[in-house]
């Protein structure tokens, strides 16, 4: 995967985060909140560069440090955005944060989606639940550079209407003619007039052509499993399919030895992998 300069990481002390401030908190769903962070050092913020797919580690001192995908696009220079689902000690501590609170951040880390190699291609994006976070960054980046790509189809699935994040963004994407955006929920619901059905089924109904296309999927394991089967039936090859892996991380820089899947480190070799790469890794997910 493509590696780009890691401007937020201090090369001489890579395990030391930079102080940052929460500038906005958005309650997305009952369990997910979005946080917009700004490095306290204006020079660092101005120099910050990353590419979609890359990750950051947010520190809540006392609770620890946890890894999240960056969900804002590279063109967003005012803040760096993360969407956080409450699952454990660190994410619970993050959910206590309010605007103005101080945290610390190490970002960007990991490898990005190789969008430079997707020029002229159709791009199919399929996100489930919190898995939409890195795909939001990707989709907005593709739209920022709309002329470089062919048809863009984006699918976003969640269990119920209340479990869908990014309401404002969804409205914007639905309104655009140059992206086919479909949000779907698993089962019919009184508050929902949109598409109903599991994401893999919705994807198959839309029948995106595999020729000259790439597909990017991100979501819970069960969604990934069935979406892969759908893509396979649609004729997508293993090298056309991209996904991101999650693993417990500590150092984020390939030293602490924790996030490996066989010989590959999710923190430095990933989190973005092609299905082809995944198939050649040992079965330890």
């Amino acid at each position: 995967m493509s590696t780009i300069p890691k401007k937020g990481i201090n090369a001489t002390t890579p395990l030391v985060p930079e102080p940052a401030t929460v500038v906005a908190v958005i309650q997305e769903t009952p369990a997910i909140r979005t946080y917009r962070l700004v490095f306290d050092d204006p020079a660092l913020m101005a120099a910050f560069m990353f590419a979609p797919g890359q990750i950051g580690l947010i520190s809540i001192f006392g609770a620890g440090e946890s890894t999240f995908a960056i969900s804002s696009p590279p063109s967003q220079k005012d803040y760096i955005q993360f969407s956080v689902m409450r699952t454990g000690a660190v994410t619970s501590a993050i959910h206590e944060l309010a605007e103005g609170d101080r945290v610390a951040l190490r970002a960007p880390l990991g490898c990005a989606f190789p969008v430079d190699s997707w020029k002229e291609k159709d791009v199919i994006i399929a996100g489930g639940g919190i898995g939409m976070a890195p795909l939001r960054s990707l989709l907005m980046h593709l739209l920022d550079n709309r002329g470089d790509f062919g048809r863009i189809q984006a699918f976003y699935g969640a269990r119920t209407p209340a479990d869908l994040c990014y309401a404002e963004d969804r409205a914007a994407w639905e309104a655009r003619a140059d992206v086919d955006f479909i949000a779907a929920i698993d089962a019919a619901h009184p508050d929902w007039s949109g598409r109903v059905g599991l994401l893999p089924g919705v994807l198959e109904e839309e029948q995106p052509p595999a020729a000259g296309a790439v597909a990017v999927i991100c979501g819970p394991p069960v969604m990934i499993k069935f979406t892969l089967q759908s893509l396979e039936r649609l004729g997508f090859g293993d090298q056309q399919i991209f996904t991101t892996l999650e693993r417990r991380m500590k150092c984020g820089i390939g030293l602490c030895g924790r996030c490996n899947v066989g010989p590959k480190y999710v923190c430095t070799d990933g989190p973005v992998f092609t299905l082809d790469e995944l198939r050649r890794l040992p079965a330890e997910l």
Partner: protein
Amino acid sequence: MRFIASDGLPRLLERLREDGAEVWAPRVVRDTLNTVLFSPWSEGDEIETGAYSTLSAKQLVLPATERLFAYRYRLTAEGEKIEIEAAGPGMHAGETVVFGARACDAKALGVLDALFLSTPGQSYNDPHYRTRRAGLTVITLACTTCDSACFCSSFGAGPAETAGSDLILYPVGGGYLAEGFSDRGRELAALDIFEDSSQEKPALAETAVLELAGLEQKLLDIFDDLDFWRGATEQCLSCGYCTYACPTCHCFNIFDEMQGDRDGERCRSWDACMFYTYTLETSGHNPRPEIAHRYRNRMGHKFSYYPANQGEILCTGCGRCIRGCPAGVDIREVLKAAAARPATPGGALQQETES
């Protein structure tokens, strides 16, 4: 060849201490049920030159626990801010001399260098490690005898390995022949505590040889053979001894220690891939829930993944994991059985498809 008499050794070490170095040597520790450990040495302390140290000398470059930075909340004109103060290498940051390392211990430092001093840009190297490593002088004691846990001959030159050593001392009648293998080592051998000698180097120990050819691929080929891994690890108790005693195991944990209500320090400490909590995720999911999964990863890391990524085997045959395992697990038996095991098909997605 240079020579140092046995009674010259304390004088050599004392001189290094006077020059400002901290000196570490294997010593029997008082009140410890006969435990030998690399320990700080000062004049008058007896050095154990016969027995192997239970723990390796890696703590001199990777301390068991160290501070990464301190964090403090401060009230400023712009409201409350966090101050982060990066910690220096602290322990063993200056000149450090380790006396009585063995060829396997010295070689292990080079194996760690391949990761921790790797080229910036390829990956991050480690500033604390780099500082300590630069200040470390390794005086190695060549092995003329060995025990049945030793299997260094499976790796490189075995007992004759010179990688990682600044100065090697070869036991001969009345003292040691000395040969420098770095500028620092040659500088030491030139000191007047040493004299010229025409004695021959002694014959070195012959340690066991374990066939490692093909293991890098074989460990991937039998990855999915859980029957094998469960059988191979049925005695393992999943403690962290083997990883902590190992001169090449380097995995670490990062955590915060509070000092008072909000301020504190972020630290890192040795961590063991044999612990259940090592890969336990906050969701409760654990990619390596069984001892078999964890031991399989440990073997994979040492004999397949690290060689593929860093070009070095993450083992030097020191035998510590064999001598000290409370359950009598012998890594060589596991590797021999792995080599003999037929390959099984597999891939990352197989597991998901099954579940």
